[in-house]
């Protein structure tokens, strides 16, 4: 489902991306930003690579056909990183707030003038919807983190628990295989 402002957005993917990237990077220390922006191998700069890939992906979806499947994919990849950066939830999800600012700053006036307020509201509503959806990803990542703390203890003492008959999980057949796979439920 595309937006009325699609054409304007499409023509401005790069400037919007650069603006939002700079806003997100401003939340990192100066010395780090220099590195994050370096054009290096995706394996040697995984943080920069993933953040940029995700932001670019989201903007492209916004300007294009907007499939939730793809949007979720990119949201998840960014948020999994943000969720373990010891930031407040509001800080972790601020990148979407910045996306809205960036769109407004780069093409806001143009959309208003050419297509009227409705078209701009439509774009902003989309980003709001993403932000709402982002909570699911954030919660899922944090819950996963806590689940892993418990899981790891079980694995660490696996045989002792098993011998005592204390294991109630997929490995023991006490739960169906699907129950173990809480991945990608969001």
């Amino acid at each position, binding site marked *: 489902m595309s937006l009325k402002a699609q054409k304007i957005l499409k023509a401005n993917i790069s400037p919007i991306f650069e603006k939002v990237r700079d806003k997100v990077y401003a*939340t990192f220390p100066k010395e780090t930003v220099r590195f994050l922006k370096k054009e290096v191998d995706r*394996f040697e700069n995984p943080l920069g690579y993933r953040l940029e890939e995700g932001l670019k992906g989201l903007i492209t979806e916004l300007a294009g056909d907007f499939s939730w499947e793809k949007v979720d994919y990119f949201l998840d990849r960014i948020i999994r990183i943000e969720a373990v950066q010891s930031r407040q939830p509001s800080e972790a999800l601020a990148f979407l707030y910045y996306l809205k600012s960036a769109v407004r700053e780069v093409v806001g006036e143009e959309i208003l003038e050419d297509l009227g307020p409705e078209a701009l509201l439509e774009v902003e509503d989309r980003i709001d919807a993403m932000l709402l959806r982002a909570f699911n990803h954030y919660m899922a990542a944090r819950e996963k983190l806590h689940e892993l703390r418990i899981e790891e203890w079980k694995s*660490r003492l696996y045989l002792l628990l098993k011998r005592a008959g204390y294991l109630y999980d997929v490995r023991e057949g006490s739960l169906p295989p699907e129950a173990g796979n809480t991945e990608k439920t969001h």
Partner: protein
Amino acid sequence: MALPKRDELLKDVNYDRMPSKHWMDTKPEFRPGTYCYAAEPSVVEDLGLPNPRKWQPHDEDWKLPPNWKEIVLNAIKDRMERFRSFKLFMDICVRCGACADKCHFFLGTGDPKNMPVLRAELMRSVVKGEFTRSGKIFGRLAGARPLTYDVIKEWFYYYYQCTECRRCSVFCPYGIDTAEITILAREILHEIGVNIDWILKPVRFSAFVGNHIGLQPHTIQENIEFLLDDIEEITGIRPEVPINKKGAEILFVTPSADFFADPGIYTFMGYVLLFHYLGLDWTLSTYASEGGNFGLFTSHEMMRKLHAKIYHEAERLKVKWILGGECGHMWRVVHQYEDTALGPAPKNLEVPKSPITGTVFEHAKSTKIVHICEFTADLIAHGKLNLDPSRNDHLIVTFHDSCNTSRGMGIFEEPRFILRHVCNNFYEMPENTIREKTFCCGSGSGLNTDEYMEMRMRGGFPRANAVEYVHEKYGVNRMACICAIDRAVLPTLMKYWVPEVSISGVHELVGNALVIPGEKKRTTDLRFEPLKGVEEEA
């Protein structure tokens, strides 16, 4: 129409922008998930270490001894005299920045103090500020600062955000090894009772009982019997596992997690099947039942104390040589310190010689300890093993070089050679993330505790990122490794970042592939997971 500027609003919604202060003016914030708990006083006391007391890193007052500053300065002086490397590292860095972006903690956290150059600078600046004239006079201009209470807190925070993995040293033109600086920084902090529970408890259990969680001999035996039941069910064979057998030819030492933790136990099943196949004359010791040596993360003396048990047992049981299992830092200890600080080996030990192939392991002439991958690779090279790699066809495998076995001892080829013979699908991760450039699991050097989970997920991110790549490109669903900490922490790391990939030791895959005379037709692997093709047949 002027649109409102939104970003100003953020000031009201709990949003901290990064401060742009000088690094000497920023203080660490002890947020849950980013630090490990302090050691319990009883543990510190049992080990005879200084300043046992109740405290936590998030406390304002760490209850340091009144003369803490004097103790620390003396400790630094002492280490500078004893360790030439340390003295050199405090001096020669030219700040070229080659190491700056090579640390997985920097790559995963974006915190500049996790750049190895800055991590070392945390100590170097104090050495300058306290011991040099120019540092005392010019202070910050000369990169110097005095030792303060806050510096101690900062050291604790960042020297426990280094896994002593040595990746940075590979890129340093001067060979500066920040891991060595971390090792000594932690040792120095121990002198004023600044320590973590997750390291000292295993040290205590290893010292008093023989392994990290204090398994008693009968528990070890019962666990092994349980595993033998499983082996029998899967293969129809029940191998013998000799325990504390005097006069055996070989003492086998492996991380204790292989006796009870998932997935270490499957690796253990692999060893046992291999030894049975060979008819090896071997034994386990319940007293030296730990390959791991958390003494390495405590002090040189503690490392020596824990390691001595292995040699004592080799002497008591009158074995000829020692075979070591798939462990990480055990091998760092053996390779780096055995010939110097920890030796000499007891007199009854002989130069290790494979009873099957006759190969003499010359490189272990003085330590008398051979790595199981060297042993097995030698068997395969001599055509001594009947292997059916198709039994691992349900797995698409990659290999993670553990920091300690790769950069700490240089074992790259043997595990790969074995994997290529025991499975048909093997794919390497990108070149700049393996072998000597491997990325750490993010939980090594005693940081594999659950309260530290968030930081571990960050530190392990560069590793996981490369795994994800081979998962997507080749369908990799299993990562093999030769380290018990890896086997403990990589499953967790994978479940967060790449849940489709599971973890195993190399010898688990050997155990799957080994065709043993007299065994029944196998339908599952050692985890009771169906072999490829079996489900369809059934």
